[in-house]
């Protein structure tokens, strides 16, 4: 049995960094608890925004200058590890959670609950992103999922069904992940990520881990719960599910596949190859007939998971960088689309038919949603294009032209249902009722719009960061 584990990591990595990291996450949760008890929703929003953004900025600064102080190292080898990969997602989730908090804001106790739980989700996100071992992964995934269930539960009678479904599914996922970890420990004698290479036990562990993390990242066939839960939840919670939780699943999946299993990944490639094709077709074909916008976007996000998987299948630095970029792009596109859906939902419009003539009742909403849809399709000048370009080209460059062609066929299928919404919005409507958009929703939609366009027009820096993140996995 080969151990890729390098004991010198532990030597150069002072353990108080990890302690400080945990302490910071603790502070966030307790600050939220205190503000929750003090019943100050505005202060809570401000404090959360501040903390999330500061952490995102810190991650950005560290990923630029961290190597100078010996903080950055390849993933794995310690319980918590600071790699470029972790720092990239630390930054991304910081921004994402900030936007989610702004989106969900209202001057009620419901928002305070949401905020409290989302601070727990945030802790989980950081544990997963900075994971150097399976322990961090499983704890992180649990801290992400359980508060999400609570968020859904607190949404009232309508969302209970979604909450229960999510809870049961995540329980199954957690137990299969735990089972996978047992296999891994049996083979590698550790729960740290060691890029362990061969063995029957490891193959079993890898399959169980893929299954478990596939629940969260909504890849076929572990995604049957996704449409029901996304549709049942309130739109701000759906935004959390689709643009944060799902991405955490992918982060964990990439870490586990490349940092934990190393060469074992090659044996998983055929499985992932087929899974990614099935995920794309499943999402796109079922989305075609949907009438409810949220349900359609749920299926669309499944199909996007299929695209993201293509980069992982290629198992090269370029492919992983492509997937990482697409994860970032889809996070903001989905959030932007959900912000508009949330706005429509507040006015009791959930079906595609209700979107007819939206351009005439609220121009801003229609334009934002159109650009997000163009982004999902992959039109140039949006982040979605760069992501898809990177992903498809990673497949083409690695002799997987067939996979790229299948992905492109899927893109062509998907144009139909995105177009259905876009065209509905621009159709003329007789009764022109004006809707006013809340300030916080406007802010989130505008932020997502700007980010999506900037990532599409000037993607160079982010691609570089994604490449550095992928390189730190030592594929």
């Amino acid at each position, binding site marked *: 049995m080969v151990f890729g584990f390098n004991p010198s990591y532990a030597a150069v990595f002072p353990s108080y960094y990890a302690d400080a990291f945990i302490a910071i996450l603790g502070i966030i949760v307790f600050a939220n608890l205190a503000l929750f008890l003090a019943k100050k929703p505005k202060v809570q929003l401000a404090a959360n925004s501040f903390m999330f953004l500061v952490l995102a900025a810190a991650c950005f600064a560290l990923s630029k200058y961290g190597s100078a102080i010996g903080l950055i190292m390849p993933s794995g080898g310690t319980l918590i590890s600071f790699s470029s990969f972790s720092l990239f997602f630390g930054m991304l989730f910081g921004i994402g959670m900030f936007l989610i908090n702004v989106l969900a804001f209202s001057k009620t106790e419901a928002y305070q609950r949401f905020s409290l739980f989302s601070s727990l989700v945030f802790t989980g996100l950081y544990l997963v992103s900075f994971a150097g071992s399976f322990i961090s992964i499983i704890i992180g995934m649990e801290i992400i999922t359980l508060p999400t269930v609570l968020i859904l539960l607190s949404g009232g009678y309508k969302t209970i069904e979604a909450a229960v479904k999510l809870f049961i599914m995540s329980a199954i996922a957690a137990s299969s992940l735990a089972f996978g970890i047992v296999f891994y420990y049996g083979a590698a004698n550790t729960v740290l990520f060691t890029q362990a290479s061969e063995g029957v036990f490891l193959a079993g562990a890898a399959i169980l881990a893929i299954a478990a993390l596939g629940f969260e990242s909504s890849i076929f066939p572990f995604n049957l719960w996704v449409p029901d839960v996304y549709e049942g939840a309130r739109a701000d919670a759906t935004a959390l599910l689709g643009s944060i939780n799902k991405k955490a699943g992918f982060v964990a999946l990439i870490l586990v596949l490349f940092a934990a299993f190393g060469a074992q990944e090659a044996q998983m490639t055929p499985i992932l190859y087929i899974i990614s094709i099935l995920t794309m077709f499943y999402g796109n074909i079922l989305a075609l007939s949907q009438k409810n916008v949220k349900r359609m976007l749920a299926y669309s996000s499944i199909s996007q998971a299929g695209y993201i998987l293509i980069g992982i299948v290629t198992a090269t630095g370029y492919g992983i960088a492509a997937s990482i970029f697409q994860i970032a792009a889809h996070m903001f596109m989905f959030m932007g689309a959900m912000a508009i859906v949330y706005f429509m939902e507040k006015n009791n419009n959930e079906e595609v038919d209700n979107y007819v003539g939206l351009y005439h009742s609220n121009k801003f909403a229609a334009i934002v949603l159109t650009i997000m849809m163009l982004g999902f399709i992959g039109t140039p000048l949006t982040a979605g294009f760069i992501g898809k*370009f990177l992903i498809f080209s990673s497949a083409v*460059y690695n002799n997987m032209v067939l996979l790229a062609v299948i992905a492109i066929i899927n893109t062509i299928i998907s144009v139909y249902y995105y177009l259905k919404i876009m065209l509905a919005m*621009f159709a003329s409507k007789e009764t022109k009722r004006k809707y006013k958009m809340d300030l916080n929703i406007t802010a989130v939609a505008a932020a997502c719009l700007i980010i999506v366009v900037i990532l599409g027009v000037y993607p*160079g820096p982010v691609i570089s960061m994604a490449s550095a993140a992928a390189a730190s996995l030592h594929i």
Partner: protein
Amino acid sequence: MYILVGLPIIGAFLSLAAGRKGTLMLLKAFSLATLAVALYAIYAANEYGIAGIGSSVAYILPLGVNLALGLSGISLILIVMTSIVFFAAALASGYFIDKSMGLYGFLFMLMEATTIGLFASSNLFLFFVFWEVSEVAMFFVIYIYGGMDRRRAAVKFLVYSVVASMLLLIGIMLLYRSSGSFDISVLQGTGYTMSHGMQLLTFAMLLIPFIIKAPVFPLHAWLPDAHTEAPATGSMVLAGVLLKFGGYGMLLLFSILPEIAKEYSVYLAALFAISAIYGAMNAIKVPHLKRMIAYTSIADMGIVAFGLAALNSYGNFGAAYIMLSHGLAISLLFMLAGMFDKEFGTLVIKNLGGIAEWSGAAAYSFIIGILATIGIPLTSGFIGDILLFIGASGAFGIVGIVPLAASIIVGAYLFWIVERSIFRNNMKRETYSEYIDTYVLAAAIVLIASLVAFGVLPSLFGL
């Protein structure tokens, strides 16, 4: 070079903010400024040499993509044509577009920026970006501003476009895979390094989008519908400029993969010739004026592609010059047809009549447009036809001049239409307005003047 692309982009964003009148002013001002820069480019190319005009800035470093724009003799011809057509369309916009002016101005200027950018782009990444954005903008123009049946036409247009652009994307990636570069100048040398099978696959992947766009039979079905339903200015841009993407793309493709092009040039030429004759035959058959003009443009683009398939410089420059001539003439015809539609309320050929009586200027402009389409001396079509068929007969022998038949068929038929619907006055009819709109007239004059100018002075482009 960035000015040429940058000016319309600035105009696009400004017109989102301006009101209806402001947008119209902006459209005219910015397209005129762009035209002026394009004309200056002709001067500069003659004075200082064409190679010097070009600029490049690092853009997406990790992908090795530069924001590189440059000119070749052929792209200069197409850019000048583009800026003239857009200026004319901007002049006529006020007459044809009557709702959501700001959005229209945005889409219109965006299309101008992207089409000029496409012809000027020195790498295929930018080429693809510009291609795709202009298509999306065109889709919205048809969908929002089109005629009665616009939705179906727009969706049909989009379906073809999406398939085309996706194949184009794969083809570009395949080229990058074997050469490690998107630069056209680098790619032109690396075609030989690929295996024959891979070359063939790449060639097919790239040829289909260009055939769809040109359009060449049998992938032309989107065009008549899109033209019939698009607003007149949209038709002008679509037929005048967007179709040239196909011709220009084929030109690039044949220079990037010359081996395959040489191997299959006879089959390609046969396909293009069939397409030209098919377009001409259909033009005779259809009873609707706009549809008929749409089919003549299939015939003309078939001839253009035929000239490109000759794979020599006469064929290439002839094709480029026909593209110039066709762009100007067809946009003139579409603009006038759009005006007849608005004035007389019908475009069915047998119901039209008495146009010469309503406005002599409109009638004679229409006739000049037809003359230019056929390629009468003193119009630019003549120069193009001569060059192209010299090239084609050089490559294919005497058979090379067969597609000229398409041109003749169309020409003869058009004259019959002129007699029937322009001069013969079969009934007294109500018109929308008493006189021809000033701006439309100005646009027609711009187009006619440039048709004649480029017919008399081909030396402008070093021909």
